[in-house]
Each structure stands twice: as structure tokens, then as C-alpha cells.
């Protein structure tokens, strides 16, 4: 009997730590997303919680930005491997010769928009000029500025906070909103869609693809397999989230509660739906076709950045975007 004990112990160890015994050590990576937990990041949360990253041999840590730290900077400073971010900002960094690479462009469609209440008398952009218009700064201001130029208007724009209270109480007439977030928050504050006037930038040839996955050139060169596996697992996570929305929402809400997010499930459901729309825009719901940065989109954004003198030259598309999924 005594001889059997080491055998049993060994068996238990195999069960508990298979990688250790099988010699398959997982690669630890970190991903930072742009904001606190919400359905905008459901795919990463699902991939992590459902063990898709683990299955891909990755021990992923998801970090949530609080708005004060820049995920791009964290990547460039080599503190983390991956981050999510908007295409516009990445192009600007690239044009400054920062070694940032887009390895997966998930959101194909811009969700940024302008919203006004019909009761404020606004019907077209031409009505903005004597109204109070608020915009977020940074990446969020590029499309509005381009839009105002296109519309040939010069409204007084005031800085916008992350709350929509000013708009709700009528202090602000036109506000920036993400379709998946603030727009629905307006609806959840008791204002009906038919009481609103909306301006989607995508409708004005200003489709700036938003969330993409970025890493440093060096990371891709060193561990292309890990990059590929990470993207694969992420896309699997997203696909699972869209196929099993309520389960995904359970996980998202779990994160939201942990981070004391002031949100609710129906809002996150709306967000997940809106993100799905943005991700499948023009590419469809086949996950194999997701994650591509289309060249025309790239140039739409880059040219506008050039136009607004936010960049001096347009970086090479080929240098900027590495299709790690589809190249395989």
C-alpha cells in the first residue's frame, strides 16, 4: 500500500498543474482597455473568464484604464503587451515614429455621434451655431471638428464631462455621445428616441473605426504566435459573447460590480448589441472575417488627421497594420 502513495500524489499534481508537469508553460501577457469594465470589452472579459486565453496558452491579465493613464503609453513603455485604442490616436503615434502596431481592427464602424433634443429647435447642423455644443477632447474631437468644417459651421464648443447631466437638464444643446453608451443613457433618463435629433459621423464620410488591438513592433517580432493566439482567443471571446449575450452580460456585470460601476444590465445589453453592430459592419457575422483594418478606412482617418494638422505625414499602412490573423 505504501508504494502507491507517491503514484496517487503524482496523479493529483497532473490534474492540478497539467502545464507544469507537461512542461507547457503559459505566456503571461497584459491587456489594457481604454475604460472601466463595460460591454465594450465583453469579448476580452469572456475570453478570459471562459478560459479561451488559457486554452491558447496565454495567461492574460486585463487592465482597465481609469482615463488618467494611457493604454498606448503603457504599451510603448513596455509595461504591458497589448492595449485597445482608437485608430486615430494610433496613427498619430505612428506618425510620431512610435513603434505601435495595429494587429486587429475590431470595430469597423464609428459609434461617435452628436445628439440634440428636438425641443431645442435643432433640425440640421446649421442650427448649431447659436447653441451650446459640447465635445470631449482628444480623439473624440477629431470627427466633430471635421464635421463642422464639412458643414461649414463654427459653433462655440465647450468641454464636455463624462456625464450627460448638462445635456439632460438643457444646459447643453448638442452633446457628443457614443451610440453604445451615452446615447442609451439619454434614453434611460426618460428621453425617447423620437424626441432626439442625431448626427452619426459615419453618415458624413467620417467613419473612424474605433477600438483596435495594438502592440509594439518588438512584441510581434518576438512572439508572433502569442500575438496570433491572443487575437484568436479574443475573437473567439467576442463571438461567444455575441452568441451567448446573457451569459456574457453576467460576466460583464460581475466586473462592473467589482469596479463599482454605476450601470445596469439593460444598458450593458444595449452596449453589447451596439458593439456587435460596429464589429460586424461591412464584414458580416463570420468571425473569420473580423479584425481587418480596411485600407480605405485607414486613409479616411489619416487624411483627416493630416487635414487637421494633427499629423504631418501619413504613415505607411503596411507598416502600421499587421494582419496577424489572416496572414496565417
Amino acid at each position, binding site marked *: 500500500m505504501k508504494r502507491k502513495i507517491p503514484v496517487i500524489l503524482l496523479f493529483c499534481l497532473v490534474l492540478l498543474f497539467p502545464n507544469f508537469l507537461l512542461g507547457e508553460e503559459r505566456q503571461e501577457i497584459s491587456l489594457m482597455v481604454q475604460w472601466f469594465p463595460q460591454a465594450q470589452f465583453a469579448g476580452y472579459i469572456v475570453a478570459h473568464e471562459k478560459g479561451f486565453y488559457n486554452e491558447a496558452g496565454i495567461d492574460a491579465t486585463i487592465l482597465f484604464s481609469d482615463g488618467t493613464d494611457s493604454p498606448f503609453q503603457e504599451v510603448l513603455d513596455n509595461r504591458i503587451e497589448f492595449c485597445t485604442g482608437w485608430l486615430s490616436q494610433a496613427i498619430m503615434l505612428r506618425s510620431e515614429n512610435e513603434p505601435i502596431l495595429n494587429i486587429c481592427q475590431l470595430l469597423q464602424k464609428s459609434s461617435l455621434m452628436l445628439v440634440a433634443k428636438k425641443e431645442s429647435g435643432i433640425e440640421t447642423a446649421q442650427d448649431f451655431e447659436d447653441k*451650446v455644443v459640447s465635445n470631449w477632447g482628444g480623439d473624440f474631437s477629431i470627427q466633430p471638428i471635421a464635421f463642422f468644417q464639412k458643414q461649414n459651421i463654427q459653433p462655440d464648443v*465647450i*468641454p464636455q*464631462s463624462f*456625464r450627460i*447631466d*448638462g445635456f*439632460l*437638464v*438643457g*444646459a*447643453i444643446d448638442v452633446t457628443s455621445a457614443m451610440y453604445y453608451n451615452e446615447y442609451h443613457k439619454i*434614453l*434611460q*433618463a*426618460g428621453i425617447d428616441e423620437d424626441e432626439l435629433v442625431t448626427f452619426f459621423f459615419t453618415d458624413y464620410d467620417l467613419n473612424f473605426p474605433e477600438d483596435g488591438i495594438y502592440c509594439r513592433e518588438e512584441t510581434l517580432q518576438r512572439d508572433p504566435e502569442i500575438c496570433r493566439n491572443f487575437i484568436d482567443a479574443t475573437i473567439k471571446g467576442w463571438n461567444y459573447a455575441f452568441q451567448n449575450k446573457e451569459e456574457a452580460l453576467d460576466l460583464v456585470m460581475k466586473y462592473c*460590480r467589482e469596479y*463599482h460601476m*454605476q*450601470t*445596469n*444590465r*439593460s*444598458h450593458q445589453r444595449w452596449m453589447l448589441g451596439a458593439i456587435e453592430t460596429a464589429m460586424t459592419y461591412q464584414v458580416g457575422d463570420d468571425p473569420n472575417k473580423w479584425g481587418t483594418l480596411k485600407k480605405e478606412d485607414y486613409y479616411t482617418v489619416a487624411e483627416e488627421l493630416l487635414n487637421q494638422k494633427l499629423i504631418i505625414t501619413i504613415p505607411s499602412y503596411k507598416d502600421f497594420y499587421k494582419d496577424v490573423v489572416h496572414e496565417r
Partner: protein
Amino acid sequence: MKDEKVKVKHPLARKLLLWIGLPLLLVYIIVILFTYFWSGDNALKQMKEYLFELTSHHASMLDGKFMKVSGASIGIADAIDEFSTPTKNELYSLMKKKLSENSDIYGMAIAFDPFDYNNKLKLFSPYVYRTDKDIADIDLAKSYDYTLQDWFMIPKLLGTSYWGEPYFDEGGGNILMATYSQPMHKNGKFIGVSTADISLDDLELEMSNIRIMAGYTYIITRTGTFIYHPTKEYMMNESIFSLAEEDGQPELREIGKKMIAGEQGITTFRDVNTGEKSWLVYSPIPDCHWSFAAVIPDKEIMKTVNSMVIRQITIMVIGLLIILLVILWAAIGITKPIKRLLGFANRISKGNLDEKITGIRGHDEIHELVKAFNKMTYDLKHYISDLTAATKAKESVESEFRIARQIQESLLPRIFPPFPDAEEFDLYARNIPAKEVAGDFFDFFMLDNENIAVIIADVSGKGISAGLFMAVTRTLMKTVCVKDVPPVEAMEKANIVLCQDNDACMFTTLFLAIYNIRTGKMKWTNAGHDEPIILSKDGSHRILKTFKDIALGIDETREYHEGEAQLEVGEVMVLYTDGVIEATSPEKELYGEERFIKILSKNAGKTLVEILDVVTENLEGFQKDNQFDDITILLLKREK
């Protein structure tokens, strides 16, 4: 005496119950049904009003609390307008003073628009707030750019005060708070805002103590967000609109829109928490544009409403039972003495008049009836004894009358023909007496072999006295009419005797004839009697004219006259009393002399008995049972 059981087909108690109880029962049933349907509505209405008022009351209390906080901030803004150039210390102490005065305020700030406090200082915002021990202060400008904060930007843009949406003050007080911002002006120019924070932890504590029936309460902000809700995870996360969306209840969204519009209302909806139909009562908290609401399960309300209705109906049913019992009691109260009376009356009817009803108290109609009954029994008893005595007396009198009449009748000659052997004449008489003893009489007697005295008389009045007077007169006449005494002498003698000691003033008419049976001659005298009729064989007649002297017994000094008459063979002298001609038909028609003579004439050829039969028959037919006076007829016929 024990009352005998009286069987009544339709007892009064049942009638009373039927006629009062049954309609009452019907009315009650209608009222109860009405109560159930109408009073249910009414109770529901009352319940709604009650909930409405209760909710308004709580909302007002909360409003008062918020107004105290906003009032402090307004006070600061007004004070800033007064100051020319307040020092930093003055500002801090001003706010600390306000904070110490008002325990509801968590913190206060004065945030200046860039360069408006000092043209060398861009941002300056002194802030005082409570710590565990005392009141601390900082300059918010050193932490962040407050000009981008909603509490600064929104009132600046709006130009009016603003109660901001609550937020969790992480790192600061670590509490849920809401900020009131009041724009400050100097010489009409916006220079910043004065703020006051309220801790929602205190509000939560206060709210958790509010109980409205078996329901719960909550508060939503102007955006519909729950800032107090018994389900903790709703607070700051869910809004009434998110619940409506999550639960697929568009109606709830509409209710929410009314709530955030500052409306007051009461409505039913499906509670998201319980899935049950519930009542939602809401009332605005005007100062901060929030809304206070109470949610009460419908079953709780209906339980209360039903218990109100059931209570009402129970009271009514008890009332009905009491009324029915009272009716029954009253019925028994009324019928019990009546039943006793009935038994009593039954015993009376069996002749027991010695009983008296006792033991029925009160002064009502029944008691009066009992009194009347007792009096009636008493009177009846006495009346019967009186009646018995009277009947006995009457019977004795009547028997005396009968005897008197028998005597009277016995005084009259009864055997006809009285002289069957006499060939010279025939004589028949008949007396038909009236009911009472009367005074008619007739008599005849032979004075000698040739002369016969014939008398007919009619004594005044009726009754015993008349009878006695008649007896006396008859006897007297027998005494005075003797052989060879002329009739007038006999008459005068009789008159004198009758007038003596005639205290009763009685008198009699009398016709006396002394008839010679061989010659047919007669001597007569008449004391006021009807004159005789002489009837011939052929039917003709004549009246024997007389002097018609005064009746006997009136005046003893009066003289009487005498006359003579001759009766031919075959002639009949008819003597009669006034009972004949004064006989009256039921139609008050007099029989009369003419009718009498006519019937006599018609039957003149017949025998005396036949004539008497025809006449009496005719008279009886005429007056029917209407005879008041004696009828006496005497017929004397000369045969040869």
C-alpha cells in the same frame, strides 16, 4: 291559571317578521350588495387619497430638508455679493459657520470663475467639509479643474441654481452625495458658484424608516435614477427607465416620464421586483426635482380595502340580526298578552265570567284592552245577573198577564150558539184579542123568558187595569141589568158606581140593548160606543142612530138617554168595537166603516158564523200581524 295553548294559523310574530323583517332583510341585502360594490370602490378611493396624502407628506418633509441645504448655499451666494473683496479666511469661516449651523450639510464650496476671485489667481475654490472629528478645508483648485465639473458648468450655463445628480464621493467622504450649486454674481456678472453637499447616507437612513403599508419607498432623481431603493444594487445603477427596459414594461417608462416631470400620481403596474400587480404612488420633491414614490402590492391594498368592506358589512349584518331580534321580541311582547287574552276570551265564551286577567303590565293599548276586557267581563257578569232577574220578573209578569187574559177570556161567553133551542133569534160573537190584555168585552144574558140583555163595551187603555176595569164593568152590568129595569136606569147606576173611587180615571164606552125575542123590539142606551149596524137579509143596511152619551166612569152626574128600535125578521144587528174599523194595514191604511159595511152586505145572506168567519178572515188579511187593539163583533139575528 295556566294559559291554554292557542293554535293560530298565521301568528302575529310571523307576520311581523314577514312584513317588517323580510322587507328589511331585502333592503339590507341590497344595501350590502351595494356596499360591496360601491363601498369597495369608495374604500379604494379613500385608500388612494390616503396614500396620496401620505406620499405627499413624506415628499414635503424631504423637500424641507433639501430647501434647508439649498438655502444655506443661497445665503453664501448672497453674502459674496455683499462682500467687496473677501479674504480667503473670511470665505472659509463663512462656510464653516454655515456648516456648523446645519447638520444636514456635508460640505460647502465657493468656486470662482477663472480670475474672478483674483486677477492673478486662475482657479480658486475653497471647500469645507465634515470629517469624523471636525470641519476640514481645502482648495479644490489644487485637486482638479473644477470648471469642467457639472456642479460648476451646468449652473453657469443655465444661469440658475442646480441640484446635481448624486455621485459617490470616492476618496473624499466616501459617501453618496448630491450637490446643490447656486450661481454667484457680482454687479450682475457671473463670478462662480456656491455649493452645498448633502449626504445621501442620512437620507437612506431616513427613508428606511418610512413605512407605507406593506410596501416600500424609493426616490428617483430628475433622470430617473434610483438614489434610494430597498434593493441596494438599484441605487445609482438602475433608473426607472432601465427597469422598464429590462422588464419590457413600456408603461413603466411612461410613469417614469411623469415622475421626472414633477407630476404627482397614483397608478398600478407590475412590480419588477416581485412580478406582482402593485400600486405606485409618487409625489415630487420640488427643490431638487426628484420624485418620492411608494410601491404597495395590490393584494395588500385589496386586503385592507376588503377588510374595510367586510367590517362595514359585518356591522350591517349584526345590526340586521339585532333588528330582527328586536322585532321578534316586540312580536312576542305583543302576542303574549294577546294570546292570554285569547285564552281568556275562550274561557269567557264557555261561561266562566269569574276570571280576571292579571299580570299584564304597561300602559299601552294591550293594557287598555286588558282593562276593557276585565270591565267587559265584570259588566257582562252583572248584566247577565240583572238580565236573569229581569227575565224572571218579566216571566212572572207575563205569566200574570197570561192568567189575566185567561181570566178575561173566561169572563166572555164562550159557548156558541148560546141558546141552541131558541128559534126566535140567533146570536154569535167573537173577540180577537190583541197581544196585550185589552178592555173589549161583550155579554148577553136572559133577563126573563122574553128579554135578553146584549152588551158590547170597550174599556179605555190597555193592560191589567183595563182588564180589571172590564171585569168590574161586566160584573156591574150583570148586577144592574135586571128584569123590568130600563136600560138607561141600569146604565146610570153603572156609571155612578164606576165613577166612584175611579182614581185611575178609567172609562168605558158601552152599548146596552134589551131585546125582546118575540117582538123584535129593543130598548137601548149608548155610553159613547160606536153605533150598531142593522143589516137586512138582502144586503142593505142602516145605522142605528143613537144619542151617543158620555162613556161610563167619567161623570157621575150625567144622564143617559134611551132609544127603541125594531128588528125585522131576518135582520141582523151588528155590534162592534172600534178595533174593527180602526184596524190598520202595514201600509197604515184604515180598515174603515165603509169596507166593514161592504163585506157585511156582501155576505148578508150567510149564517152568523159564516159572516163572522168571512169578516175576521178579511180583517186578518188586511192588518196581517199588525193588530194593536182588540177586535170584538157581536151579531144578533131575528129568526122569526
